[in-house]
């Protein structure tokens, strides 16, 4: 039995702290990897954060309402016993039967099997004690294990974002990346802040490079206004972060995007006659609750195009491009109170269209009710914004760093078109691509839009 820390996750490039809003579990509860166990409020939204471990909740370290920096421990989870093999989040729903008693039947390729036997070469670097057998051997391939070992990352603590919760190369690289810059504060000032009940994050540093020193903490502690401020969070109005904080978060991120990313923009008009006809026929036969929207089809086509043009699907970090580990399509969802979130539909290129539609409905609903999950906001590999409902014909969007492209769709409109030498009226949509010129050139972007067009001419294959 080992103890694991459940820490405040980074739910996006722009997040450095979050407010623990609610615990969904209590000490003593059994939790499975991938299960939401806490609600965290970021500058953008309230997010359900999934557990990285299977085991039992030992202790909750942080009270609801506390602001916690990314990486700080929130709870202690005692890892599961040997006998209870863990399951990746993707398969969590099917857990509980079939594999628990089948320890003998292990094939390393089977991600979900998790044979209770340490894989060779998977020792945690520097650790004298081998990792507990209830870890997740098999959830990471040999390359990933090798990379993790070389960069000193403990695979068992990683949250796999690959198919079936598999730990991917990108997960390891993300974990190995240096943590986001922290507040500079001297050890004594930090200690003093604790003693005086001052939140160091609220103290303005006057030392070198803005470092917080004891004098700054004392000054902050001496200010009566400081004490009057409740230490808990400002009660969130609608279960989500207030519009001002969200506005500021969007402002920061978009400013960064426009400052750092040399965008180039491409646009094309796609004939949707085939798609719309197919969609109408599909919807006519489908139960009402399973009807498809054009938006789902456009998303699906964009995801397929991203798979075929992987140069646009991934991240630009520290001067180089890292391809995404699958196509996780960020969907820009505008919130009714104002503001925007862009949670991911995982593996949008491979899930069948009806499932993608259901996922979209669920995602938009939860985005608006402030119940997104950590994995959904953390890892989109490219984002799609569909402003068709708002009546515009085309959208030239700003890329969401560190992604390298953003696909925009306008409204599906009927336009006169020349078809086979005759003038016809066809439904068309303007598809645009904003792409990061550091990662790709116009030719790649053009290829993307071409593939997108081709996909939309063959709706039955989507």
């Amino acid at each position, binding site marked *: 039995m080992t103890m694991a820390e459940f820490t405040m996750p980074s739910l996006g490039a722009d997040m450095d702290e979050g407010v623990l809003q609610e615990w969904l579990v209590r000490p003593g509860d059994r939790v499975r990897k991938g299960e939401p166990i806490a609600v965290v409020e970021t500058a953008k939204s309230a997010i359900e954060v999934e557990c990285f471990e299977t085991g039992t909740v030992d202790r909750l370290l942080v009270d609801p309402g506390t602001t916690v920096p990314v990486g700080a421990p929130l709870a202690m989870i005692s890892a599961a016993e040997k006998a209870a093999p863990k399951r990746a989040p993707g398969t969590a729903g099917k857990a509980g039967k079939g594999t628990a008693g089948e320890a003998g039947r292990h094939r390393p390729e089977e991600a979900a099997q998790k044979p209770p036997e340490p894989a060779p070469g998977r020792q945690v670097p520097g650790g004298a004690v081998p990792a507990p057998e209830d870890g997740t051997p098999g959830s990471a391939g040999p390359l990933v294990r090798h990379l993790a070992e070389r960069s000193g990352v403990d695979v068992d603590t990683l949250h796999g974002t690959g198919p079936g919760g598999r730990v991917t190369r990108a997960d390891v690289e993300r974990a190995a990346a240096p943590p986001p810059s922290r507040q500079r504060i*001297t*050890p*004594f*000032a930090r*200690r003093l802040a604790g003693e005086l009940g001052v939140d160091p994050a609220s103290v303005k540093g006057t*030392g070198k490079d803005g470092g917080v*020193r*004891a004098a700054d903490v004392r000054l902050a502690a001496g200010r009566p206004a400081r004490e009057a401020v409740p230490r808990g969070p400002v009660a969130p109005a609608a279960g989500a972060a207030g519009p001002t904080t969200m506005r500021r978060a969007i402002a920061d991120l978009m400013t960064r995007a426009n400052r750092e990313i040399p965008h180039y923009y491409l646009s094309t008009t796609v004939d949707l006659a085939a798609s719309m006809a197919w969609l109408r026929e599909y919807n006519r036969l489908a139960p009402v609750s399973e009807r498809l929207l054009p938006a789902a089809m456009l998303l699906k086509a964009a995801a397929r195009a991203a798979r075929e043009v992987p140069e646009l699907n991934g991240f630009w970090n520290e001067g180089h491009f890292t391809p995404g580990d699958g196509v996780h399509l960020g969907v820009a969802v505008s919130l009714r109170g104002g503001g925007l979130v862009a949670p991911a539909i995982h593996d949008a290129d491979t899930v069948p269209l009806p499932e993608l539609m259901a996922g979209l409905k669920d995602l938009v609903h939860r985005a608006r009710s402030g119940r997104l999950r950590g994995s959904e906001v953390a890892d989109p590999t490219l984002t799609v914004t569909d402003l068709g409902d708002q009546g515009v014909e085309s959208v030239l969007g700003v890329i969401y760093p560190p992604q390298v492209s953003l696909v925009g769709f306008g409204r599906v409109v009927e336009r006169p078109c020349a078809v086979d030498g005759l003038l016809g009226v066809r439904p068309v949509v303007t598809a645009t691509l904003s792409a990061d010129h550091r990662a790709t050139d116009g030719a790649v972007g053009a290829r993307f839009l071409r593939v997108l067009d081709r996909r939309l001419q063959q709706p039955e294959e989507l």
Partner: protein
Amino acid sequence: MSGEAERAMRTTTYREALREAMSEAMRADDRVFLMGEDVGRYGGCFGVSLGMLEEFGPERIRDTPLSESAFVGAGIGAALGGMRPIVEIMTVNFSLLALDQILNNAATLLHMSGGQLPVPLVIRMTTGAGRQLAAQHSHSLEGWYAHIPGIRVLAPATVEDARYLLAPALADPDPVLVFEHGSLYNASGELAPLTEPVDLDRARVRRPGTDVSLITYGGCLPKVLAAADELAADGLDPEVVDLRSLRPLDEATIDASVARTHRVVVVDEGWRTGSLAAEVCAGIAERCFYDLDAPVERVCSAEVPIPYARQLEEAALPQVRDVAAAARRTVG
């Protein structure tokens, strides 16, 4: 003893204080004798033993050949044989010729004999730069000796310590190395009668303060006190800690000072890399991390052989302005 004690406060020099201490020890104990290069007829290279040959005779004030290994080895043998030798080495640079004797014999015999062979030996030597004696006479290697278990390393920085550290050093059953900074011999100071027993293990707060701890020893102490005056004129309140003993280090005094001031400057004439200052800083980081309100600063010598030319020598050594600047960085 009564004659000494009745004497009132008086002014004397570091050199005279050392001589008084040795003479007193030799009068008090027949087993004590002094040997080294030029200590007899010449009165010591730095004049410390001037006049002692006349009082104690060539049996107890012994001039030796120019062979540090031989006469330090002889000193170790004499100590094993029941004597209480004081061996003077001209400078720390030349002590390297006796390093084998000091490390492999003096520091080790007690351990290797299972506690049967203590080596009650005192070795005095000059250290440090500042007198245009160039690279073969000017280095500060006491930090190397402070690395060695089995010996005690003292660095008297005041007239008082020059006068009163020798007796307990001679009384110590283990080898004691006494480092006398060359720039201190002519320093004069008030000498009060001894009123309490001397504790070799303790550092001393030479100037109490609350804003920054200036930790130093030996020849740098006067410079650090001058820097403290300069800082005080600016409204700062620095504390000056004189380590006195480089092995063992008085961690309690260091830690208490850091807990008062939360800021530290360590001043050491040795080279920065692998220095005694490094040891002091590492200890502070280990024990006082949660007391630190600024990165620890070090002021050490430039990492070059100490130059002969006056301007270059000054530039290579820690100076008052360097110490003051480092202190201001910690509070700035």
